[in-house]
């Protein structure tokens, strides 16, 4: 490992490089949530910090799992999550409405969230098992596509376009990293361009179609769906270089900004902390994603490489789509900003991804030492 400093082994092994930036980001997120709650720790900021603490412990525990065990668990985990997704659908059908979670009594489990790391795990495991020579074969393409298509379809039925796209993105990135020939991606890209309009007209719910239209021209419906994008841009734009000050953001304090604590938490932050706050958030995400890619590059086995690369891509997908959305570069899809938005599912998924990355980092250290 690079930059080895003489520290006691447990301390040296502790993943400081990710825990420190993440803690800073989550603390910053808690400040923003404090402000979004009108200057109060409850109900957002306190639970945000508690969840981070809980899931950090979960991640650190996960980091101790051995590689063989994880690889072995890939298929059962995938099947269990798939069954849970079907159960959600069944409960939804019986309950006479769409539902995204299972009520477990002590918590609401959203299986689609678990599928985001789950899909990366199963596809990484598949390519690990696939003989190297077969990478250009149809099997190397069709089996992962099937593995991706099943959960995507189930999640689309909920309907939850954002999560469905996140699952697809994670799976496809792993396929790309696994070395599936370029021609499939080029072909797939062309097919997507052709299928997009068809999907738009037949695949999307009317409210989702409206969101796409509004994204193309927010001014067309300033009081309706365009309202989110317009108010978000006003919040970010009025923040300026250094922001209006902690607790002084009029857009979020006076309820002009919709969802100031979840999907539009970045706009809430930008209004009060300005461009400087925004660059800090981008920097932390940059550090975390770079850390993830370095782990992937340093990984010794094909499974570990693909796993780390896929997890990094999943986190990246959240960050990129959310930020593009709040800045008016993408349609409004319900995707929260990792480590800042208030919400247990998003924190759980992202901390699982971080936990997996810590785990791979540990495997790397074990093999190198």
């Amino acid at each position, binding site marked *: 490992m690079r930059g080895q400093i003489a520290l006691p082994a447990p301390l040296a092994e502790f993943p400081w490089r990710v825990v420190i930036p993440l803690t800073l980001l989550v603390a910053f997120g808690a400040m923003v949530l404090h402000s979004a709650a009108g200057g109060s720790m409850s109900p957002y900021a306190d639970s945000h910090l508690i969840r981070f603490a809980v899931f950090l412990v979960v991640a650190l525990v996960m980091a101790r799992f051995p590689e063989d065990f994880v690889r072995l668990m890939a298929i059962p985990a995938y099947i269990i999550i798939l069954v849970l997704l079907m159960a959600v659908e069944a409960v939804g059908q019986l309950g006479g409405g769409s539902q995204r979670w299972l009520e477990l009594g002590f918590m609401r489990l959203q299986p689609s969230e678990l599928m985001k790391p789950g899909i990366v795990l199963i596809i990484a495991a598949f390519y690990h098992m696939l003989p190297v020579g077969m990478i250009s074969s149809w099997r190397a393409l069709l089996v992962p596509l099937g593995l991706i298509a099943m959960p995507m379809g189930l999640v689309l039925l909920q309907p939850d376009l954002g999560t469905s796209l996140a699952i697809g993105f994670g799976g496809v990135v792993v396929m790309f990293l696994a070395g599936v020939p370029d021609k499939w991606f080029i072909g797939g890209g062309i097919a997507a361009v052709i299928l997009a309009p068809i999907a738009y007209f037949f695949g999307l719910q009317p409210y989702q179609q409206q969101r796409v239209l509004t994204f193309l021209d927010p001014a067309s419906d300033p009081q309706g769906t365009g309202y989110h994008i317009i108010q978000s841009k006003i919040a970010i*734009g009025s923040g*300026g270089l250094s922001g209006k000050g902690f607790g002084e953001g009029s857009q979020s304090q006076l309820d002009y900004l919709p969802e100031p604590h979840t999907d539009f938490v970045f706009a809430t932050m930008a209004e009060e902390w300005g*461009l400087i706050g925004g660059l800090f958030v981008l920097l932390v995400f940059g550090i975390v994603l770079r850390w993830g890619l370095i782990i992937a590059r340093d990984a010794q086995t094909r499974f570990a490489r693909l796993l780390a690369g896929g997890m990094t891509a999943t986190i990246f997908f959240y960050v990129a789509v959310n930020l593009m959305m709040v*800045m008016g570069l993408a349609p409004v899809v319900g995707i929260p900003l990792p480590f800042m938005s208030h919400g247990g599912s998003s924190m759980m998924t992202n901390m699982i991804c971080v936990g997996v990355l810590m785990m791979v980092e540990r495997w790397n250290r074990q093999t190198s030492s």
Partner: protein
Amino acid sequence: MDRKLTSNSLKQTFDRRSFVIGSVQGGIGVLLAARMGYIAVAENEKYEMEAESNRVNLSLIPPRRGWILDRNGSPLASNRADFRVDVIPERVVDIDATVETLGELLEFSEPEKADLRDRMQDSAGFSAVAVANGLDYEKFAAVSVRIPELPGVIPQRGYSRFYPTGPSVGHLLGYVGTPSREEYDENPQPLLLTPGFKLGKDGIEKEFEQKLRGVPGARRVEVTASGRIVRDLETREDTQGDAVQLTIDGPLQDYAARRLGLESGSVVVMDCLSGDLLCMASMPSFDPNSFSDGIGRVEFGMLRDNERVPLRNKTLKGLYPPGSTVKPMHSMAFMHEGVSPSETIVCGGGRRIGNRFFNCWSNHGVVDMAKAVYQSCDSYYYHFAQQVGFDKVAAYARRFGLGQEFDLPVASQFYGTVPDPQWKLEKYGQEWQPYDTVNASIGQGYYLASPLQLAVMSARIATGRNVAPALIKSEQKRPFASLDFRDDEISYIRQAMSDVVNGPGTAGRARLPLENVLLAGKTGTAQVVSLRYSDGKSGPWQFRDHGLFVFFAPFDNPRYAGAVVIEHGGGSGAAYPVARDVMTFLLDPQKGLDALHALEEQWGGTAQERLDRQYQAYAAAAGVDLPPAPPPVTLAEQVDAEARAAYSGPEEADSTVFSPRDEANPRSEGAST
């Protein structure tokens, strides 16, 4: 080896592709940073302004309306601080539920709820509809605490227009109300949509709207997205509108209106020297205080169903045959055309004109000009009008103000008719006949005049000058031009008119109960239907004769002149007691009031009290089954249109000969004392 090589090549592919992904991620990161920089720095100003316009809500404060003052500076219309509730229909989610809740909180009756619902549905949507004003604090507070569940409802402290003398000034001043859709379209200012803003709908309030309006204040407040006010940022006080001072004498106006009592009629009194109108009372009337919130269906039903047309300003828009009140003026015309006052005729209960005999109301024997005036002998006027020619007499009538419109700040005035041969030819295509002269010579036939015109005529007779009425007080004295009558001509008529009251005339009971002032006047009875239908004194109200009286005082040095018209009063006897009491009040208020209080006791309260009772009774009888009131503009137009139709004269030329009735000893003589 093969496998290892391939595995290595896959590792290379992975490295290459993870580099691509890393680059894409970095690229998107840079893109996001650039985008954010662009929004937050380059477009900062624009978005800061938009955030500001989100946060800050500018609301106008309706200006306090300028007062309307009488000639002595006492308010005829002022403002009263009150608690009020308005509603903006566009922001209301469920109109029916809102009306129900408000009705419950404010204790509305069913017709009131129906009115509110209508007004909310018919409004321009974005403009405010008045729900109630003049609320006590408890009701105001009760609405205020329910605001979260009543979107669009705005309780506020404000001012409402207050007319201390209520119905007495209704026609003169008009009333104020919420701007209508038409008024907003004509003049789309945000002020017109401000809750609590009222503009003048009629009378002086409408004519002097711009002067009375004032400049609105403004309040900048910080609001949440749902419209809740977080705090005040800045407030600019409103500037009250300018006052308008009228020539009206407030107490006299109120006295005259109240003195009309149960009758339907009008009183006009003016200052002969300055032309100032001291009083323009028209009854029955409406209470402008209760019109401010829009006219309710009960109120409208009551006003519409009243055959005495309480919505018409009778001083300007009531037209009546002037009857004998034109006789002094005709006498002056005869004098100027060379008839000596001492020239006499013999009235044998009438007189032959051409080949026909025309009746007089009595047998007066030998009649000179003075006797013709104070005894109101018809024969005298038949004879000399025929001798002089009525086209010449008509020209004098116009010089004395009949058939004329005056330069006054009023919405409309009717100018009536002074008939002459040319007019008849144009209107009916028929030649002027001797009986037309006979009818017109005693103020009947096609002759029509308004009470204002009669008052002006009386002032011009009294002074011999071209007195013009004025409603707005001004300091400049305008000496009026002479009408070219000699002093002896003028004093001859003054004396004759004094004799009507103080001598052997037809209105002995009009004598002022004062030591040193003598009233001069002339009675008139205007026939509504011919003798065949009614004797003019009893029977159905609408068939009774109009009673008229024109007057001035003191008779030898006239200072005040005026006219009283009592619609269907049964003859002049209904009119001159009113004139007497009004003049008594003007000269000795206490004496006048004593007379009024005695009468009001008989009638059952002041005009305001009687109107309130009438309203209660009508509301109780009618219940909810009333059509909603039309908007005020239409209402005024309807009233005008009906009035015009009623006074446009018969379709066919009238060929009947007028049969005069008793001038003296009229019906109400006994009742009014």
